């Protein structure tokens, strides 16, 4: 949808702008450009990110829950077969990486994997479809891939971070957790160094989770947008191979996020001295 009036950089900027809405001067209103969105500060919501991820999460849970309710012990049908295959895959991953016993980790891994997979999958919708439809409906901006919004990925990473801290404290006790942060690797005489090293170690977990997913998806989205700048009759020569390659990225990033979540929780469950 490159209209004549828009330059390439306008087009790109337009596509990278979330639908940011918030209360400003007493009334609810959505930002028209990046400057306005910035001016709203922290008390604003990216409606597109939240909406799409909510819908995708509900689709995931609805589909899985419907199968779970009617799950049969005998010969499974088509959708049950597929879901069981996914569940077995997740279960094997959890068993492979997570040494403790927890009722939370496997469902967490399943949610992380499917939800992120679906969010990433939105990347394969041609970049102009949904913004175009949104524009016709009077909505200026709409970014359809939630995982290209750092808010979404950092939000999930914070969730995982809370769980890591929670389980560290639960398994090792508050003293054990603090001891782990302060007394290694150099013993009590290297206390400041220890705090620095272990602090970085701890903080790096959610940051690496969030930025890895965000960076990959953002870069992929960016390339789709750049391809969309080409004349329409040559676009497919680039967008098709990139889309096919992106199917791999989409799955791989969801899998990496899931595996790292499992591994971090496994580390939180392990006592080491």
């Amino acid at each position, binding site marked *: 949808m490159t209209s004549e009036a828009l330059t390439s950089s306008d087009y790109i900027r337009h596509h990278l702008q979330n639908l940011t809405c918030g209360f400003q001067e007493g009334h609810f209103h959505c930002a028209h450009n990046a400057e306005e969105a910035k001016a709203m500060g922290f008390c604003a*919501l990216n409606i597109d990110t939240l909406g799409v991820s909510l819908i995708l999460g509900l689709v995931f*849970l609805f589909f*899985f829950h419907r199968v779970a309710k009617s799950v049969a*012990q005998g010969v499974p049908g088509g959708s049950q077969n597929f*879901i069981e295959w996914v569940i077995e895959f997740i279960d094997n991953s959890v068993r492979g990486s997570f040494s403790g016993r927890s009722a*939370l980790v496997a469902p967490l891994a*399943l949610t992380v994997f499917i939800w992120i997979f679906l969010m990433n999958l939105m990347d394969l919708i041609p970049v102009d479809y949904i913004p175009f439809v949104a524009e016709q409906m009077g909505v200026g901006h709409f970014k359809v891939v939630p995982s290209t919004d*750092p808010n979404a990925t950092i*939000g999930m990473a914070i969730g995982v971070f*809370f769980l890591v801290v929670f389980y560290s404290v639960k398994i090792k006790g508050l003293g054990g957790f603090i001891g782990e942060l302060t007394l290694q690797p150099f013993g009590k005489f290297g206390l400041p160094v220890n705090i620095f090293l272990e602090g970085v170690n701890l903080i790096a977990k959610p940051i690496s989770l969030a930025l890895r997913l965000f960076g990959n998806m953002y870069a992929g989205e960016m390339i789709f947008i750049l391809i969309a700048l080409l004349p329409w009759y040559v676009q497919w020569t680039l967008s098709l191979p990139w889309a096919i390659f992106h199917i791999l990225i989409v799955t791989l990033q969801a899998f990496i996020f899931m595996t790292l979540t499992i591994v971090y929780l496994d580390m939180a469950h392990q006592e080491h001295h």
Partner: protein
Amino acid sequence: MNINATLLGQTLMFAMFVWFCMKFVWPPIMAALDARKKQIADGLAAAERGRHDLELAAKRSAEVIREAKEKAADVIALGDKRASEIIEEAKAQAKLEGERIVAAARAEIDQEVFRAKEQLRTQVSAIALSGASKILGREIDAKAHNDLLEKLVAEI
């Protein structure tokens, strides 16, 4: 692309989804998977047991057949023995019978001989009598000389 409260919304949504998944999605599916796993394991165990039973039955039937064969061989051997016994018995009886028949025949022969001798003796005495009467030229009174003649017959 700026950080705002979306982040908190996303975290909240994440937590709710995970909670829902943990409560209503994972356990029933996992329970069904475990139940099926158990069912399959039970089925395999039952099949194994069946195979074992079959093996036992085959062994048992072979045993029964072997016993039956042995018994049949015994019966046959017994039958053979009994048959030869019967034959021996029959032989002995036949021999006895034969001897009895031979003895009876011999007795009859003796009797016959005796009778023939008797007859011969009377005929000889008659011949002697007629000879003597011819020689003497006169008829001897058979009645008068009967006791003499009888004496003569006894002498022959």
